[in-house]
Each structure stands twice: as structure tokens, then as C-alpha cells.
């Protein structure tokens, strides 16, 4: 897989990822939204429905935590992960941890990383990890790492995270270099160091010396909904420090359920790849994303004090105010859910604990985020990321 920067705007940059093994000639435009999956499927979305959301090719982000229970099946299947999960047309990208689920902290030991599967804790060392990667044959993967740090981590924890990750990475890297199976797979290196600028610089400088396809900015949060609360200001110094030391032509990835505003600022800072954790988490809590990403969008009132409140980018369809609301989730939204169904129906489905409720919200949320990313790419070209960011924070008052 190859990444090329095509255009550097006043802020942010456009590029493309190409040479994906499974679909020769396929090109993904960056900033790219990868599709978060659980157990190999987009949550609530079968292949049949995925086709109704978008016919575009998608890069599937597959957390090992959600797949490891099925590893013996994957191994004996022998044709790689994408085909095993019934999505062979889609390239896949494996990460050790799950960006949408909070990772229990404090369980990593020396050269073993805790991987929390649905059957509990498993520990994975680099040899085991690389063997699994070879069997899964992803198009892209992140090396094993100890990213168990956040803004509250002690210096001692950061030091451990850094030292262990360096060792884990070196072993994965050596294995990757020797592997014949992984010749076309892109290896991404983790960047650790918590919120310690010095540690970040040292780590980034070290990683800059390896021949990898890109870097994943790790260790800023421990995954799950906590990431949503992160304001860009708090991570800005860390990001600047890391990017300063890393080669500019390589892919830069930031996983997690960033709120839309922080995400735009990450794009502006030069990040190229994200995932759909936020649309997923939003769906799980029965909420639909309604923030505007286009000047012409009329978005609903998301509740009291919604003006410029970055937390209010969604509406809660379980709220009884929607029980008799026969409007679509979002006016003028072209998604399948909005074209055909009402807030009242989705409200009813959620209240009745019917599966279709979350299916319909997920369809809308994924569509919304995919369109949001198109808007981000346009804004980079027009040097208007600032006004997009302002727009995302604005709420019109129309219900």
C-alpha cells in the first residue's frame, strides 16, 4: 500500500492511499474515514445494507479485541480476514485495541499486551501477534503497542509505555521485514509518550528512522467515549511535538471517537486517517448525528444551550419529544433512513428494544460521517477548514 500527499493546504492536506492488495488500482482519498467493525462486521450493518449506504470502497478497521475469539476459525480458513468475515471486496486494517471501547488500564506486562476479548483478557506478545497478522493477511496493520496512557498518566507509566512499545515495535518490525506474506501489507508504527512532550519527541525521532507506511498517534486516551471529551487545545502541544519529528510524506492516523470539532482540528494539523467510532458510539446511545457540515444544512435544535456547545452534535431519538415527530432524522439528508423513515418510528423502535432502531440510526450516522469527510476534503482544497469548524459548532434553531 502506498500513500502520497497530493495537496497541502493552508491547513490540512489531501492525499491518496493506493495499491491495496485486494483491489488493484483502488484509491482511497485522504483524509480518510475507515469503517470501524466489530467481529468483522460494521456494527448493525450487514453487507446487503452496507451496499445501500454507499457503493464506495471502504477500508475496514478491525480491532483484534473483537476478532481474537474467532482466531482458530480465521486460521484454519486460511484466506485472510476480509474473506472470512464475508467482505472480501473490502481491504482491512487491523489494530490491537478497539478505539470505540474503553480499554481497561493497568494490565500490560513487560513484553505482553492485554487484549480484552468478549471471553476476557488475553495476553499477546509480538511473536503471537505477528503470527496472527500473517494468518489474517490485512492490507494494513498497526504494530503491537502499549498505549495505556492518557492525560492523567504518571511519568512512570509513560516511561513504561514508551520502553515497552519500543521493544514490541522492534520485534514486529523485524518480523514484518522477514515476512513473505506481508510484503504488500502496510505496517503502521505507534507513537507513544502520553502527554509528556519530551517523551513524545524522543519516541517520534526514534520511529522516524524506520521504514513504515505511517504513524498512529497513540496513547492520548484509552479508547471509548472518553475520547469525545478531548478538546484540541489539550492535545495540540503533543501533536505539534510529534509531527515536527516525523517525516511529512508518511500517513498520519488518529484513532478514537473524537468530537467533530477536535477531528477537524486534527485534520488541520495534518492527520490523514480516522475511524467511525463516534458514529458507532452515538448509535449505541440512541443518538443521531445532526451537526451541519455544509452551509445549506438546516439542523435541528439539539437541546438547551445548544449554541456553540460542542457536546451537542446529536439528538437523542429516545427522547419522548420525538414520539409524534413524523419528520426525518435530519431534513434534506439523502440517507436511506431519512428518505424513508421518521423520528417517531425510530423512537418507537428504540423504546421497544427493536434491532431496527439502531440499524436505522447507524445508516444515518455513517452516511452523515462519510458526507462530513467529503466536506472536509473540499474544505482543504478551498482552504476553508476554519469556517467548516465554525459551522460544525453552530446550531441553527429549527426543529
Amino acid at each position, binding site marked *: 500500500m502506498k500513500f502520497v500527499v497530493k495537496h497541502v493546504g493552508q491547513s490540512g492536506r489531501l492525499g491518496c492511499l493506493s495499491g491495496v492488495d485486494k483491489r488493484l488500482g483502488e484509491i482511497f482519498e485522504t483524509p480518510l474515514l475507515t469503517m470501524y467493525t*466489530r*467481529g*468483522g*462486521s*460494521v*456494527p*448493525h*450493518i*450487514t*453487507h*446487503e*445494507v452496507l451496499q*445501500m449506504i454507499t457503493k464506495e470502497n471502504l477500508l475496514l478497521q478491525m480491532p483484534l479485541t473483537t476478532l481474537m*475469539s*474467532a482466531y*482458530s*476459525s480465521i486460521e*484454519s*480458513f486460511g484466506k485472510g480476514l476480509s474473506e*472470512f*468475515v*464475508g467482505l472480501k471486496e473490502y481491504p482491512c486494517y487491523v489494530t490491537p485495541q478497539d478505539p470505540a471501547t474503553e480499554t481497561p488500564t493497568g494490565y500490560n506486562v513487560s513484553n505482553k499486551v492485554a487484549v480484552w476479548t*468478549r471471553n476476557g483478557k488475553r495476553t499477546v506478545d509480538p511473536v503471537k501477534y505477528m503470527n496472527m497478522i500473517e494468518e489474517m493477511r490485512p492490507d494494513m496493520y498497526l504494530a503491537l503497542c502499549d498505549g495505556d496512557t492518557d492525560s492523567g498518566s504518571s511519568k512512570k507509566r509513560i516511561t513504561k509505555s514508551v520502553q515497552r512499545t519500543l521493544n514490541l515495535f522492534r520485534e514486529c518490525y523485524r518480523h514484518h521485514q522477514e515476512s513473505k506474506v506481508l510484503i504488500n501489507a502496510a505496517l503502521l508504527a505507534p507513537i507513544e509518550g502520553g502527554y509528556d512532550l519530551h517523551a513524545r519527541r524522543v519516541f517520534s525521532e526514534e520511529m522516524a528512522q524506520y521504514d513504515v507506511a505511517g504513524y498512529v498517534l497513540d496513547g492520548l486516551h484509552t479508547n471509548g467515549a472518553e475520547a469525545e471529551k478531548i478538546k484540541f487545545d489539550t492535545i495540540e502541544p503533543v501533536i505539534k511535538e510529534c509531527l515536527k519529528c516525523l517525516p511529512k510524506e508518511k500517513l498520519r492516523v488518529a484513532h478514537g471517537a473524537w468530537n467533530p470539532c477536535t477531528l477537524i482540528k486534527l485534520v488541520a494539523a495534518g492527520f490523514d486517517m480516522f475511524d467511525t467510532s463516534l458514529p458507532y458510539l452515538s448509535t449505541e446511545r440512541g443518538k443521531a448525528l445532526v451537526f451541519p457540515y455544509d452551509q445549506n444544512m438546516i439542523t435541528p435544535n439539539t437541546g438547551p444551550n445548544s449554541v456553540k456547545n460542542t457536546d451537542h452534535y446529536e439528538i437523542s431519538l429516545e427522547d419522548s419529544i420525538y*414520539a*409524534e415527530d*413524523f419528520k426525518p432524522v435530519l431534513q434534506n439528508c439523502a440517507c*436511506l433512513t431519512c428518505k*424513508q*423513515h*421518521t423520528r*417517531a*418510528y425510530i*423512537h*418507537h*423502535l428504540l*423504546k*421497544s428494544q*427493536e*434491532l*431496527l432502531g*439502531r*440499524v*436505522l440510526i447507524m445508516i444515518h450516522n455513517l452516511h452523515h460521517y462519510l458526507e462530513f469527510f467529503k466536506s472536509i476534503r473540499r474544505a482543504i482544497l478551498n482552504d476553508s477548514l476554519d469556517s467548516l469548524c465554525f459551522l460544525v459548532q453552530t446550531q441553527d434553531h429549527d426543529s
Partner: protein
Amino acid sequence: MSGKAPPALSYRVLGTCSTSKARVGVMSLPHHDVDTPVFMPVGTKGTIKGLLPQQLEALNCQIILGNTYHLGTKPGIDILKKAGGLHKFMSWPRALLTDSGGFQMVSLLELAEITEEGVKFKSPYDGSECMLTPEHSTEIQNAIGADIMMQLDDVVHSTTTGPRVEEAMHRTTRWLDRCLKAHSRDHDQTIFPIVQGGLNPSLREQSALQHIERDTRAYAIGGLSGGESKDDFWRMVHLSTDLLPKDKPRYCMGVGFAEDLVVCCALGVDMYDCVFPTRTARFGCALLDEGQINLRCVAFEKDFRPIDSECSCTTCERYTRAYLHSIVTNETVACQLVSVHNIAFQLRLMQRIRASIMEDTFPTFVRSFMKCRFPDSSYPKWIVEALSAVSIVLE
């Protein structure tokens, strides 16, 4: 366009089996034409197991069921009225059938009590005393607006005997009259009377004859599939279809196991419904001609075949048993995928039945189906007897 609007239900027989009572027909309803014999998936609360209306259409599903009791409590009749009926509320363009709500009430609410006026029950929400009368059931179903509605009937457990069965049978007829009188949308909704009479042949006969007198557009056979012996079950169906007019559709309520469907088609039943195929999908049970498999079983961990290699549903086209095994009961996607297959299985079974009747090879189909389902020819006695009653002999 001028002239009279077509009736809310018209039925045409397209072909009959020259051996048994099986027949193929088309039932034209305001929202869709339905090929019979038909299996109708159950969408209790205005949805079926996470499937989009588009997916049901792609499965060639022509009619689905909604449950009046559930819909009446959530979202409630007011909202359904404001939405313009259930079709619009759930965005389902094809045909719908609703039950009367009575059966659900009697089976779900412990304190339901049946009087001449209706079904008396305590509200599960505020404990207040409520009454579902035939008029009320009809009014609710008129608001829901399904193509087919069911009369409120006096439900007794299928194994009940004695005077209670006779009382219920006569009351069901009186309630039918009240439903028909209260019905306000006869131009676009059809009420099905329900033949009752428990397992008593003479009561069944009386019930059927009383309903036939009312000259409705179709008939249902009720009070079965509730734990009675299969021997009693088929005899009651057989007796009912002998009496009911040949030019009108017959609906046997609550039937959905593959062998029951095949036998009842032979006995001349045209419509079926059952929660089983979709309910069982949630627990990872997939349906096959040979029976069912539980995808949770470790045996499927390395089974890279589709659920059914004969099946062309979107699940079998793409997903393996091993993959389904890895996500079953953990990811909702598994429930949707198995539901798609199970509905496809039921509909394909009906399609195969219809095709064989049209080619007049239905007895051959029945024999090969039963052979596949009971490979060592250990056919249950009731199946052998029921089929031989309509001249189909299993070797």
C-alpha cells in the same frame, strides 16, 4: 377511471393438485397481490428482526403480520392514526395483516377474563381495569389499517374440553357479527372470521357453517397450534377445509414448522404465520430442509460452507457457518443474517410448494421433502395419516 373500486380482497385459484386438496392462488389485496399458499413473517411491533423494508421486499415477501395488542400499547393508536396507519408508520408498501389482540391478551396477561362483552384485563401500565370488546378491537385495527384484520374471538386453550368450548364457539360467532357491524373500512380492509370449536368435530363444523353463512371474503382456522396432539390438529384442519368454500382463502393461524406447512398445504390451507423462524434466528438457529442447525455449536467453528448451499439468499451468498458461529449472539448483524436466511427458507419452501402444485407434481414434492426431513423414513404417524387422508402415500 370510473366504476366500482375492486373489493378489499379477491381470490383466484390458479391451479389445483389432482391428488390432494392443495391449491395455488393469488389473493389481491389493496397493497399487494399475494401468491398462496403463503407464509407470513411476524413483525410484532412494526418491524422484523432488524430488517429493512427493502430487504423484506428483496426476499419477495408480499405480506407481513403486526400484533394489535403490542402496537396498541406501543406506539399506541393515537400515534398510528397520526402517522396515517401502520403501512406509513413503518414504511412498508406491501400487504399487512393484524390479529385481534385477544389472543395476546389472554396469553400475556394473567388476569384477563372473558365475558360476553369482551376480554376484561388489568392494564399492565397502571393496573386500571380495561375491556377489549369486538367493537374496540375492530376500531383499533381500522386505525392500524392493515389489508387483513382478524375478528376478536373467544380463545380457549386448544386442549380445553367440555361446555366452555361450546360457549366459546358460539360466542365467537356473536363476536364476529359485532366485529362486522363495527367495521368502518370494508372497502379497503377485510375481516377474517375464525373457525373455533376446539378439538370437537361437531363444534368445528357448526362454527364453520355459521361463519360461512356470513359470506365473508376469507376464513381462518383458529384455536389450534396450542399444544394439542398433532393427530387432533390435522383432523381439525382437514375437517375445516372440507367445509370452507373453495373459492375463498383459508388461513391456519400459528403454523410455521416446515413439515406442518407441507401437510397443511396438502389439506388445502392457503395462509400461515408463525414467530418461530425469526424468533429462533436470534438464538442462532438456521432452518434447512433437513431440520435446523444451531450456529452456536462448536461443530461449525471450521465449517466454511454457507448455511444452505441450495439457498440464494444474501446471507448464504456471502457468509459462512464458521463466520456466523463467530458472531452469533454477540453481534446483532448475526441475528439479521440468520433472519434473512430463515425468512428466505420459509418463502422458498412455499415457492417450491406452489411450483409443484402448478406442475401437478405436488405429491412427488411432498414425498421427497419428507424423505429429506426424515431420512430413515421414520415418518411421524400423524404426517403419514394426514397425507394419506388426501391420497398422498409416503413410502
